[in-house]
């Protein structure tokens, strides 16, 4: 196997406030191969977002190594990273098309090519015909699709997604999961997908990396050997259940426990 696309080893991140130090990320080690879709899953506040921000170069880190790209294919963080956050963060005074073009404008990419690519991407995310709408005229799911198109406009090698569907309702979320898988296959990007939904993590990922909070550490790194293209049907398969059970266990949520506590509270 060739050199990994992303290589993290023993990464530590400490947030310092005046009074105390807070260890946000501790000894995180993992590799991501080019073209993978890796889910990072864990409870809120466990440092998933911090890891993404370290990879994006937004946060510094105190120890360990972070390497993206290789000698053969060098990586330029300013041009090769696309980001999607939980909120679409669209500019409300810009129409959809102009929102998608924002990174291209900032990077000074040639306008004509960017425009063509924007149209292509909007078609890919299923928003053809909505180029001239303002964000507030779109549904939440459509806004997030716009944000995904925006993250891809400059053809980045790596797409970082921080709970991109966390603010959507359950049905839209499942639909967006399928869409994302299709976009991933069409665009052949490497995607790092942060979520606290275990089902979502398994359903999407070629691999799932599990993080635990306090101490913020890596708990597991399993590859999901379910075939692509994945269908919602697979969520009912035994194989899928095995993975999710395994992950629940790792996050300290024994399957069956919640049922008992549910009974107790019902008796109260």
């Amino acid at each position: 196997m060739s050199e990994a696309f992303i290589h993290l080893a023993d990464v530590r991140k400490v947030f310092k406030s005046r009074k105390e130090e807070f260890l946000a990320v501790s000894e995180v080690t993992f590799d991501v191969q080019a073209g993978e879709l890796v889910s990072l899953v864990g409870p809120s506040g466990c440092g998933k977002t911090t890891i993404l921000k370290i990879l994006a170069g937004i946060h510094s880190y105190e120890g360990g190594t972070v390497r993206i790209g290789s000698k053969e294919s060098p990586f330029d963080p300013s041009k090769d990273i696309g980001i999607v956050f939980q909120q679409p963060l669209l500019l409300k005074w810009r129409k959809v098309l102009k929102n998608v073009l924002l990174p291209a404008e900032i990077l000074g990419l040639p306008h004509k090519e960017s425009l063509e690519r924007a149209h292509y991407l909007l078609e890919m995310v299923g928003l053809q015909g909505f180029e001239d709408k303002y964000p507030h005229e779109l549904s939440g799911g459509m806004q997030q699709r716009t944000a995904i198109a925006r993250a891809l406009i400059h053809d980045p090698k790596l797409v970082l997604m921080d709970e991109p569907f966390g603010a959507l309702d359950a049905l839209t979320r499942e639909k967006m999961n399928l869409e994302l898988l299709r976009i991933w296959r069409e665009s052949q990007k490497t995607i790092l997908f942060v979520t606290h939904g275990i089902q979502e993590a398994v359903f999407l990922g070629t691999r799932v990396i599990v993080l635990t909070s306090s101490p913020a550490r890596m708990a597991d790194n399993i590859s999901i050997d379910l075939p692509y293209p994945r269908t919602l049907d697979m969520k009912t398969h035994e194989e899928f259940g095995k993975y999710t059970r395994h992950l629940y266990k790792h996050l300290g949520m024994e399957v069956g426990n919640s049922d008992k506590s549910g009974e107790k509270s019902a008796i109260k």
Partner: protein
Amino acid sequence: MNDISKQVRRYGWIILIHLGVVIIWYLWVSISKVPDYVMPSPIATILSLGEDYGWIHNTYVTAVEVFGGYFLAVVAGVSMALIFNWFQLMEKMFMPLVVSLNMIPKVALGPLFIVWLSYGIGPNMLISFSICFLPILLTMERGLREADPDLLDLVRTLRASRWQIFTKIQLPGSLPYLFSGMKVAVILAVAGAIVGEFIASSEGLGYLMMQVQVTMDTAAMFMAVLLITAIGVVLYGIVLLLEYFFLGYGPNEI
């Protein structure tokens, strides 16, 4: 087509309601026994325009003071907000000073301005400026800080320059705030100019009101108030037009 009829209906209502108030005013004055010098009728008020009070000149003078003071306040307020935003140290040092200076009742400064600057259009413009400057500064300053931190992170990973962040994100994002401040400032600008004229002046609608008060020409005072209001309405209308231009659904290229 539908849009136009909607608009006509909307403005129709606005005109109708205003007319209604005038009619109630007229009826009240003619039915009740309120003396003319206390409450003139709408007709007497309009007729007072026939008196030789230099209406056009005085209205012009007050309008210059209001528009001038307001324009200065917008320029100064926006530029100071930009400076504060770009140089955080400046903000830390001078923002508290600006706020405490603002606590001075500007009306109380009127007599001082007259000592320092003599009286006339200039000092009145200055009072108008000083009174309506702060809401513009504060709202603009707040608007510039409004950009979502995650969005800023996003464009910073793209190595956006400070100028790009400013022109593409901060400035357009601050406009709704600026316009709300500018709307509040309209009323203050008018009040400031009139107060200046009350304290000392030899022309303007405020000056005229002080003059006709002596002769109890209430109808002329009413007319002056209406004209002052009209100046404010025109300025407000301009601000609304600008707001529609920048924030409406028309040309949205900022």
